[in-house]
């Protein structure tokens, strides 16, 4: 009986591994992917990168232009995340079990959050391209929608987690709904909400590069331009600047987190 139990567990595990291998092999067959060629091309790609993908003097002459676009991209990321956070907070209040007004608004809130979160930022960009054309506004809205969906979900869970007990206590004193939100929910959850907002800004800067390629704005557009005109040296400088910006922002937000948490 006892031996059987472990035997069955081991059988299940082996079956699962066989299944995963079969799916992988099937996918390789369908996609006509050559594993050996795939791995052997890695050193080749690396050699190409070393030979071509580094900034030269000419690339550095484009630095002011790159910085200009980089700042634009960072600002759009911050703006989209912050404005989305305000809307997301209102939806999170309605969606949280602790603070919801009724089940109807709660389901609407959760539905919105799921919908906006699960459509990828690239898909949003392409949908919005039809409405706004190739402008910074397209990028802003694409990032805004995804941030809104994600932050609503994150905020809802944070509020549920941190403020349940104190909300009960304040309701018991006869405090009004709004007073309960401002006196219990906001102070208990604020640091974590800000932490989520910082995380969203970082994520947005990463996505913004991709969105820029699609919408023809910001730093992504510059990368696309240099890359397609075979100016790999300038394109590499764009990548380096993006990486530096992301690292700097992460350091800054880690510092802010340390102070507030």
């Amino acid at each position, binding site marked *: 009986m006892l031996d059987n139990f472990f035997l069955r567990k081991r059988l299940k595990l082996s079956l699962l591994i066989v299944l995963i291998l079969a799916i992988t092999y099937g996918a390789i067959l369908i996609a006509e992917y050559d594993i050996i060629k795939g791995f052997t091309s890695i050193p080749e790609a690396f050699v190409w990168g070393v030979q071509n993908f580094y900034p030269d003097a000419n690339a550095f002459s484009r630095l002011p232009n790159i910085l200009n676009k980089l700042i634009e991209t960072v600002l759009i990321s911050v703006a989209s995340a912050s404005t989305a956070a305000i809307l997301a907070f209102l939806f999170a209040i309605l969606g949280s079990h602790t603070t919801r007004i009724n089940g109807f608004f709660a389901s609407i809130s959760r539905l919105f959050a799921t919908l906006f979160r699960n459509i990828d930022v690239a898909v949003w960009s392409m949908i919005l391209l039809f409405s706004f054309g190739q402008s910074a506004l397209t990028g802003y809205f694409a990032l805004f929608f995804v941030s809104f969906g994600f932050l609503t979900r994150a905020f809802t869970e944070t509020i549920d987690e941190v403020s349940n007990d104190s909300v009960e206590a304040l309701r018991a004193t006869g405090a009004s709904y709004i007073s309960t939100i401002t006196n219990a929910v906001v102070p*208990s959850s604020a640091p974590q909400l800000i932490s989520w907002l910082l995380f969203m800004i970082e994520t947005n800067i990463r996505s913004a590069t991709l969105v820029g390629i699609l919408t023809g704005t910001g730093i992504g557009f510059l990368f696309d331009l240099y890359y397609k005109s075979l100016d790999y040296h300038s394109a590499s400088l764009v990548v380096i600047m993006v990486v530096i910006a992301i690292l700097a922002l992460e350091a800054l937000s880690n510092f802010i987190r340390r102070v507030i948490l």
Partner: protein
Amino acid sequence: MTKLLELQGVSKTYGKNTVALSEINFSVNEGEFVSVIGPSGAGKSTLLRCINRMIDSTSGEINFDGQAVQKLNKKALRQFRTKIGMIFQHYNLVDRLTVFENVLHGRLGYKSTLAGAFGFYTDEEKRQALELLSILGLESQVYKRCDQLSGGQKQRVGIARALVQKPKLLLCDEPIASLDPNASKVIMDYLQTICKSMGITVMVNLHQVDVALKYSDRVIGISKGEVVYQGDPRFMKEEEIHHIYGSEAGELIFNLSEESHYVG
């Protein structure tokens, strides 16, 4: 003695079949110290929360201070809740705020939405809060954040928050269940003082039978959502305690004969 609180045939069911409370009848007089004891899941917490309508009872009547509690509309319910202070097992403070702010939360029920939302408190309210904190021995902790306090101190902040409401009744839900014996004694002594010297009626859910017997004027025993015992703790017999907990003699940690010896 005047009746402050009266429950008649109060029941609470969840869904169709889950009965939390069934046909609860009892009354509490002004200035009385009442303990509610019973096994976990017997419905003690639900009972307490039905009184201030944090949970709505399914049927029966609750009268508090001449008001029919179940019929109150939203605004009247807020006013009614200001007259009842509540104390919780996990203190339910806003940990990131100071002791002072947490105590002043007790005044929110008296405020308009706007004044409450921005936390505008009058000088008189602040003075009362400070006075209560010094009575509870927390004058040196006023500006400390609550997450820096010990359990016993947190519970005293909880008591101050309830008292600043100027309540007629204190509902205490397992106030000492998370505290060590020393802090438990301090808290129970404060509750007793509040009852005897401030004339505030106290109703407390307890797990510790010995504590219930020592402090209360009356004990209410609850089992499976029903009141199975009511009476003066001085005349309570061991069989009655075993009846409440559904146990046999000798099965409980608590032992009445030793206990009375140690109290006496």
